[in-house]
């Protein structure tokens, strides 16, 4: 009898010890979980315009070394990146996002609860004027909504400059920009963005002079805000050259009909086999078996095909300038219903976005380069998911054209690089333009003209004023890393009419 209470006490102690152990275990688990801090701030003080791209500046930190994943979701587009966090260090990422009323940012780390932040964006119907100047002076430009910006409000992705329609930057702000912000600003200038630089010194001026697209017509320099405003007002009289739409670029090269041909042939074979089966074995099992074999065969054929993407690039520049603007479309043909993950060309990935706003798209962003490396989306048979890219590249084409009395034109390569064979567009007529070395000249006979035969020439003619001259060349895209085999591109260089 005396042993029973002793047993009961030891049982209670054991239970308490067990509870203590569990508590300590949970405590140690709680201590092991890293604490992740997340802040997210939009560029342009949260302003953007419907259908444009902007940027979210994300800061991530943790109290212990941990690998965190960051998801940014804006409407139907999402991005994810993996960040190696070190204690005491703040990781910064700038993610380009499409315009949406709200953007959700979420950071996840192993054994830590997810941290979420919501970012609200203001969608302006009026054009936006960014004013990044050190003074507190207010600026008013008719029809524009002016935003007073600090250096940190300017984005680091060139594509995020789509949010503003004009920008004034002074020397103080320019000096405060980091190298990624400067690169994005140069991209904006190269993309013919309206930009007024205030009080910049000669050295910077010389550097930026070469960076302005459209012959530098939309990059201006002013000494005061009043002068900057009046220059912008005058500049608004000249409209920006409209970019070629993705559908127009898509028309330059037809999609590959390989999948369609395979499906058509397999259906034809099926119907032939079904008729033969009906003639020789008119039984229900034979009909069912023919159908089943046709389904299996067709699906196996589609699974065995390798869908090749297609890249189409259209670029434009002005003779003698340093940069050409480009717009590109990459088509990804689908064969079966599946979710695919495709690599993006590294030189184009920084400005990748879905051509269709309604398309659900997921991007993987490389933290170090800040560019999208992979895109992931749902596809299906005959579906052409398209990604759009835009930007600029260095160009060296200087064309000297002299109209002669007999109607012919003397064309001279006034640059330092040789040209390949192309086409000369003048007076609504396309003529063959032979390859010319530096300094070489040729005479294009007025009678040698013909109507534009292919879609690239037709597009070039619609992009060239009837009273001006332009030259069209095929682009060699072999140098574009990661470009698909099926890549085509064109460069249209216009010659400014003599003044």
């Amino acid at each position: 009898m005396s042993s029973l209470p002793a047993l009961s006490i030891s049982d209670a102690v054991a239970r308490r010890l067990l509870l203590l152990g569990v508590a300590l275990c949970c405590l140690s688990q709680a201590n092991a979980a890293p604490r992740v801090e997340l802040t997210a701030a939009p560029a342009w003080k949260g302003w953007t315009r419907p259908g444009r791209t902007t940027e979210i500046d994300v800061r991530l930190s943790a109290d212990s070394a941990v690998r965190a994943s960051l998801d940014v979701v804006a409407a139907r587009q999402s991005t994810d990146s993996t960040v190696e966090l070190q204690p005491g260090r703040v990781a910064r990422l700038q993610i380009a996002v499409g315009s949406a009323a709200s953007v959700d940012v979420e950071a996840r780390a192993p054994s830590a609860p997810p941290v979420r932040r919501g970012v609200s964006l203001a969608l302006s119907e009026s054009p936006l004027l960014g004013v990044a100047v050190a003074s507190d002076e207010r600026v008013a430009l008719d029809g524009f909504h002016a935003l007073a910006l600090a250096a940190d409000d300017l984005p680091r992705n060139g594509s995020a400059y789509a949010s503003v329609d004009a920008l004034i930057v002074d020397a103080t702000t320019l000096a405060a920009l980091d190298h990624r912000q400067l690169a994005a600003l140069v991209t904006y200038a190269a993309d013919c963005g309206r930009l007024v630089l205030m009080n910049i010194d000669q050295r910077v001026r010389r550097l930026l002079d070469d960076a302005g697209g459209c012959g530098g017509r939309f990059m201006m320099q002013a000494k005061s805000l009043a002068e900057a405003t009046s220059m912008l007002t005058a500049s608004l009289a000249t409209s920006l050259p409209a970019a070629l739409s993705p559908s127009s670029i898509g028309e330059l090269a037809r999609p590959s009909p390989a999948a369609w041909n395979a499906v058509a042939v397999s259906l034809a074979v099926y119907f032939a086999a079904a008729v033969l089966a009906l003639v020789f074995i008119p039984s229900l099992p034979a009909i069912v078996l023919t159908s089943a074999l046709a389904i299996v065969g067709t699906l196996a054929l589609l699974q065995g095909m390798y869908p090749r993407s297609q890249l189409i690039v259209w670029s434009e520049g002005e003779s003698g300038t340093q940069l050409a603007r480009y717009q590109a479309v990459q088509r990804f043909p689908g064969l079966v219903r599946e979710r695919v993950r495709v690599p993006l060309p590294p030189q184009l990935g920084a400005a990748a976005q879905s051509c269709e706003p309604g398309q659900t798209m997921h991007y993987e962003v490389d933290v170090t380069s800040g560019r999208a490396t992979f895109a992931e989306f749902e596809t299906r048979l005959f579906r052409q998911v398209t990604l759009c890219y835009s930007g600029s590249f260095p160009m060296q084409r200087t064309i000297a054209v002299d109209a002669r009395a007999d109607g012919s034109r003397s064309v001279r390569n006034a640059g330092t690089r040789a040209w390949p064979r192309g086409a000369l567009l003048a007076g609504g007529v396309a003529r063959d333009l032979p390859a010319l070395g530096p300094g070489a000249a040729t005479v294009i006979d007025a009678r040698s003209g013909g109507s534009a035969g292919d879609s690239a020439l037709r597009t070039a003619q619609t992009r060239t004023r009837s009273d001006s001259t332009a030259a069209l060349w095929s682009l060699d895209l072999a140098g574009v890393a990661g470009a698909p085999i099926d890549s085509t591109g064109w460069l249209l260089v216009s010659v400014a009419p003599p003044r």
Partner: protein
Amino acid sequence: MSASPARRFAALSGLAVAAALAVWWLGSTRLAIDRGADAGRTSEDVLQVAWLVRALVVPTLAVRVAALAGWRAGAGAALAMVVPAWPVLVLAWAASAAPLWQVVLAEGLLVGAALVLPMVGRGLRRALPRGDAVEPVATAVGIVLAAAAWIAHDRWTFPYTF
């Protein structure tokens, strides 16, 4: 009507329907591909029309053939009408955004109708005292059932509610 010619006629009709659907689907998807448009909408239309056409033919065929040649003949003829379109439907589904369960359910209903409706024909054969009245009555019942399918489809838009 004996079982074999009825089944051959039904299978030929099924093949003809499937071929017409295939030509329509291939033509419209080719146009969509060339224009850079989405071929999904056309594919969904093809799925819907394929179901509707067979849902109209199956009752008439199943009831009439079963009334004249028995349940096995009726079911065989109805299934021979339904099955030949399946390869086209699988491809159209692969090109559409329609959920798989909807397509499977729709085809399951057709197969179910092909197996059940011949019983109506067999019942008519047994119920009607005059042998020469079986064929017109069975045909009329089949047409009524087809009309019901048309009305139900028109009101309910089942099974493809994309």
